């Protein structure tokens, strides 16, 4: 381990360094490029995460909207609810729905960016 030098330095002998993560022998980007099993696993996990996120986003918006005509159509008590002079139906579907979907969309964009950032960190070994 010690190199021959004119003035030998004192050295501490330890085990392998644990504080620095070992870089993979090959960058994962190469694995993906070569379409090896490892590369496919990384890519599939990204696609699955993004698909799950996308479908959750759609469900978050579509499920309440689909419930709306059923609830209002068949439960007269809900149908007659008012907020001030405005019937609840018009308050929800005439105005509040638009900021609501904007909010869900904003959440989706953040999460999708985060998934991609994680993937980037992973494959570039940072």
């Amino acid at each position: 381990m010690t190199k021959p030098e004119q003035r030998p330095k004192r050295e501490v002998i330890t085990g392998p360094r644990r504080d620095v993560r070992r870089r993979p022998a090959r960058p994962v980007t190469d694995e993906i490029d070569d379409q090896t099993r490892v590369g496919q696993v990384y890519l599939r996990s990204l696609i699955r995460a993004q698909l799950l996120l996308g479908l959750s986003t759609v469900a978050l918006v579509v499920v309440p909207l689909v419930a709306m005509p059923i609830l209002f159509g068949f439960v007269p008590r809900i149908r007659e609810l008012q907020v001030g002079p405005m019937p609840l139906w018009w308050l929800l579907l005439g105005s509040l729905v638009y900021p609501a979907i904007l909010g869900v969309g904003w959440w989706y964009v953040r999460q999708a960016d985060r998934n991609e950032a994680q993937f980037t960190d992973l494959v570039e070994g940072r």
Partner: protein
Amino acid sequence: MNPTLAAAGMALTVLVTIGLAAYSSRLARTTGDFYVASRSVPAWWNASAISGEYLSAASFLGVAGLIMAGGADAVWFPVGYAVGYVLLLALVAAPLRRSGAYTLPDFCEARLRSSKVRLIASALVVLIGWLYVLPQLQGAGLALQILLDTPTWVGGLLVSITVLVVIVGGGMRSVTLVQGFQYWLKVVAIMVPVLFLLAAWRADASPSALTDAPPVFDDRTTVRIENPITVNVSEQLTLEAEGTVDGATVAGSLTWQPGQHTVADGTTLVFPAGATVPHLSSVPQLTGAGWGQPLQSGEEHTLYRTFALMFALFLGTMGLPHVLVRFYTNPDGRAARRTALVVIGLVGLFYLAPSVYGMLGRLYAPELLLTGRTDAVVLLLPQAAVGGLAGQWLTALVAAGAAAAFLATATGLTVTVAGVLSQDVVSKRVRDPIVSFRIAAAAAVLVPLLLGLVAESLPLARAVSLAFAVAAATFSPLLLLGIWWPKLTDAGAAAGLLLGGVMATAAIAISTLVPDLAGWPGALLSQPAAWAMPAALATMVGVSLRTAHRITPGVDRIMIRLHTPEAVAVQRTWTARGLR
């Protein structure tokens, strides 16, 4: 009504559009310039352009009209038009941008490596484009007839000529500036009158539109009948008429018993103050309270119609060819997501307004329920509710906004359709690409113009929802599977596109030609997306699984390209052929 101001409003929109197009085409001479320039376009401006192209006559005029006639059930039109972008954002935007494909046919060819699927996709783009342009031209005809008293074909012809001038002049290659401007014009043109309308309504002691009675004429009202109509009368009514009523010539006082009555065109009817408004036979007569609540219209299978409409609009948006083209102007996948997010905000902002017009229309312009021309409510309400000089200026403003609506959408669609026709049809016969594009543009404008002369006019927003239904039954399953499912094969895609396209088109054709179909056949055929889209999706999956040997060679490389962020240094050697 002062026609001069309204005409000036429309003419100004046309001139500014042509001027901006000419100006921006001088800025960017080549398509290369256009793309390079587009890389520096911020997401919000790009989103303005997408929203400008998207908000058509159906949104500007039609949505308020349908809400006025149909009430609570009709809110699904604006909600659906906006929610479609949530699906587009969450499932399509970034991967589509990363595919590098410019148009939907490009995407098909790139993802499936099949020129046959490309051809089917091209045919569908043309079909959807024409279905979508048709109501724009009819909307223009309606607006000009209402405001300037011209025959209905004049508006469509003027829009077609303007679109041709703009496109053949070459300006629309750099559309971002023009269409971004048109979005903001439309928002101002619909929002500013809302403030005045609400003020006028409050000054009028805020009468409720949600009463227990059907709408009545507040004052003595004269209505001129432009098209022959059949109306339902609910209680005995004495009115004055001049013209032909129930097949007999009348001039003077007339009593209508409850039941159906026909009125010939050219007849003038004068209703006394306080009379209940007779409704056109195809418009449900609703009390104010029934109007304000869902599923009260008495139409058959309302719940199915509601869900099928949601299905068509939610899924159809991602398959609209003129919208997807614009996502290419984003620099990368992340920017495409941001753009789609801003579009949700911009489109949602616009859709706050139509319900107000719909509600106030029942109070201040109830004669539209008699003539059935509720699509005109946005144009007529400022004069009817505000009146005076302010009313005239507001009418000019909504007229300018309406002109922006037909022009933006008609131009965007015509460019898209002409591009496809030129690339896949005309250029095989004509060598010069510019000549080829011009021939294609003329064809792209001419066909819907001629169709508009023969086709019966549907309510605008309803007519546009048919184009959404075809998009939902064809491109929506193709994009979803093409992006997320590597096993989609060219054979599966072709089978699903053909099946979905044929089923949706046939259903629309039958329900338009035989409008009186009752029961389930009527409901299913008039809203086909809810069954045609699942059928197309199942066909794509089923045929793909049986033709697994045809899975696109190198599909893993394609999936890498679609889904890895641009920041990751992987090879992206695969490129779409359409990339220029």
